[in-house]
């Protein structure tokens, strides 16, 4: 623990166990590993797509990662802006507009992310990533290795449209079965935010003398308040 507030201990990119795990993964998987990096102590390994299931097998049988934490997707497309620049609305974060990739890189827009842990060794966990090309969002299913992958893969299927070969039944998990679209893709709009401004903004009353203070030149939000109060 830090002696004084704000002081930090430097977190190593890879903790001791992660270095060990990485060495053993490299020995088993060889050139199936495209890239690897550290994320605040944890090892992030990006594998080739055809080695997705085999890397899980190595983790489970070779490294003793018997516990599946989660499988998820990432869409690296920049978040579309919902607030106009310079509008003064700081309620929504302005994300960078160019496409950049995270730890251990990526080849394209879609990526699969998974984390496996060991229940027998301390802090023993591996983060796995693999790239899925835009025109062929297929990956091998992990269900036969980790039965818990069933629901995670169904979630990734409905949220991103990833298809898992060998999954017993890819059907909707959260959403109604007639739902169309993949909500966690970045190009799927968050409609609630686009049709209605952030409600917190409505509460900000203009200061006297500021634009928007006039009687007839009020903004739509202020009008909405007045209408609501008189109703």
């Amino acid at each position: 623990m830090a002696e004084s507030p704000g002081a930090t201990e430097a977190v190593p990119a890879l903790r001791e166990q992660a270095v060990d795990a990485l060495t053993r993964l490299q020995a088993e998987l060889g050139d199936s590993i495209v890239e690897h990096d550290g994320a605040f102590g944890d090892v992030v390994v990006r594998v080739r797509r055809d080695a997705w299931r085999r890397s899980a097998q190595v983790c489970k049988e070779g490294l003793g990662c018997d516990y599946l934490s989660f499988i998820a997707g990432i869409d690296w497309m920049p978040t579309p802006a919902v607030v106009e620049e310079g509008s003064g609305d700081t309620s929504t974060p302005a994300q960078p507009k160019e496409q950049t990739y995270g730890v251990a890189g990526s080849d394209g827009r879609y990526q699969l992310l998974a984390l496996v842990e060991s229940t027998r060794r301390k802090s023993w966990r591996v983060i796995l990533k693999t790239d899925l090309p835009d025109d062929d969002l297929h990956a091998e299913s992990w269900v036969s290795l980790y039965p818990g992958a069933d629901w995670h893969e169904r979630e990734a299927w409905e949220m991103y449209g990833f298809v898992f070969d060998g999954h017993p039944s890819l059907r909707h998990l959260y959403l109604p079965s007639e739902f169309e679209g993949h909500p966690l893709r970045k190009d799927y709009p968050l409609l609630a935010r686009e049709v209605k401004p952030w409600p917190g903004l409505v509460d900000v009353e203009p200061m006297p003398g500021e634009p928007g203070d006039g009687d007839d030149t009020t903004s739509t939000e202020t009008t909405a308040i007045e209408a609501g109060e008189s109703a």
Partner: protein
Amino acid sequence: MTTTDLPTPGELPEIAVDPAAFRHLADAQVNVELDTGDMVLNIGPQHPATHGTLRLVVRLDGERVVSADPIIGYMHRGYEKLTEFRTYPQITTLINRIDWLSSFANEVPFIQAAEHLMTIEAPPRAQYLRTILTELSRIATFLLFLGEMGLQVGAITPAFYGFRDREYVLNLIEAVTGGRFHPNFNRIGGIKDDLPWGWISECRAVMNKTLASCDEFDDLVVGNPIFQKRTRSIGIIPQELGAAYGVSGSNLRASGVDWDLRRDGPKYLVYDELDWRVWTHPDGDSFSRYWVRLQETRESARMVLQMLDQMPSGPLMAKVPRIIKVPEGEVFVNTENPLGEMGYYVISKGATGPFRTKIRSASFSNVSILPWVLRGVYVPDIVTILASLYFILGDIDR
């Protein structure tokens, strides 16, 4: 009871015959063997034993479950999408509502993920307060479970005791944070406020009361022969299978897996400064899940008592900029929440809000094992197994 052979969806038979023409056949059937086809039973979404809107579609052969399919998503609020359009301080408000029984414990891993990315650390007193409040929410959550579980097997008294004792703990949380359920008390870099005057002695009294009520539950529920008959060797989760399903927390420890992120994960909060132990039970059945949670409630109360004695003084906040911008990077932080492993994989691109947040919630994985566990059990045991897994719908659906 009548049993009907329901067709599976998609292959409904065409009904084009006059039933009267077959009446003599129906009469004849009375004397032959009764039809024992499977029956489909819908439990939920509004069944009182399901703690919310979990729907179970079970296929029954007589009183036995042939297959069970949990249908989730009735409470899906799309938090992972929402986090991409909110700033970090706004998100803590959202994640309070994931597992609403232990909201404070939900905030901790997310706040820590942001702190890791910003390379700041909360001062010692804030760490202690966080740990105390996390353990208090664990006690509150478990006390409710200890009572509720009795209710599910037909004993109403423990439920009243559970709610009564939880109220003392909730009062403590409310006195510090101002909120009984949704404290939203964590700040990036520390904690909002210090303890109110007289709180420490109050807390000490409540913890002693909690220890006494744990003994009460021990007598009233654990030692009860009916309770034992209803829960022993029911709903067994084997070690390896539980881990492969991602079952975590007390549910996995009740299967004999000696794994607790407070001790075995990367260091967080002040658990390494306390004297405590991890409880496991080798059986893996509903009873052992109850037993492990009972022991963990005691252990948490003892931990809180220790922390009250050794809490350091000092500032509550690290130096944090007024507008929080989190540097580019990725981090995964998971903590041992009352319901199991709660983790956030946060990807930041240097903005005031995360680019992507994967919320790994405990109940989601804990419940995903239901199709396996429920196969072959009797209908009344479904309820006790559901109760002993102890899930929160908001934690499944996010």
